């Protein structure tokens, strides 16, 4: 377990940077970790994906399938990966404060 500090706030994250206390999530958490996910600046397109992920997760307690994310945001797979170079599961879900996806590589 380690911590991330940003703008006077401290977040507990696991070894891969996933937020351990989801109730502490705020936009500044996404801003804090964006650089480590290869994102220079969070644009409105990034926030559109993050907002959808959070809304979906709060409703279903699970991350949406990639096609659902693509359809609901109106973005192609390529556009999503261009926004989040480490991928929607690792990059976007992490910034959105969702639980770490588990499973094989």
């Amino acid at each position, binding site marked *: 377990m380690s911590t991330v500090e940003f703008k006077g706030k401290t977040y507990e994250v696991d070894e891969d940077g996933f937020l351990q206390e989801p109730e502490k999530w705020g936009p500044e958490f996404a801003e804090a970790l964006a650089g480590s996910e290869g994102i220079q600046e969070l644009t409105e397109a990034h926030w559109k994906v993050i907002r959808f992920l959070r809304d979906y997760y709060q409703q279903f307690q699970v991350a949406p399938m*990639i096609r659902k994310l693509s359809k609901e945001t109106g973005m*192609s*797979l390529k556009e999503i990966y261009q926004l989040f170079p480490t991928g*929607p599961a690792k990059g976007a879900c992490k910034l959105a404060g969702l639980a770490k996806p588990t*499973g094989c*590589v």
Partner: protein
Amino acid sequence: MSLVSVKHEGGCVFSVEARGYRMVADTPPGWPECSNKGPTPPEMLVASLATCVGIYLARYMREAKLPYEGFTIDAAYSKAENPDRIGSIAIDVNLPEELPEARKKALIRVAEHCTVHNTLRQPPEVSIEIK
């Protein structure tokens, strides 16, 4: 059908050989003993589906005289648990020119009939023996 041979090359690196062609599979950064020398096995599986879809579509579009030169395919997958597996795969086929909806539906039907897609729909019997 050719024999596909896989050899452990140390760490998580495996060389794959089929009909004299060689590929390498590995694990990404963050995994123990990872050296990131090639795609992961799930990525290879998804690539297999995407290329099979591509082959079927290219053949169909050529015969139908549709514009297809340089078309691209993007594929992504989501994981699922219990047991660990690929839970969903999404494929975007990006054509060089916009086609009517009826044509697009026909292309989806063609793509869904490719060998790898059929295989995922109707899983094969897999037997593993230790020699």
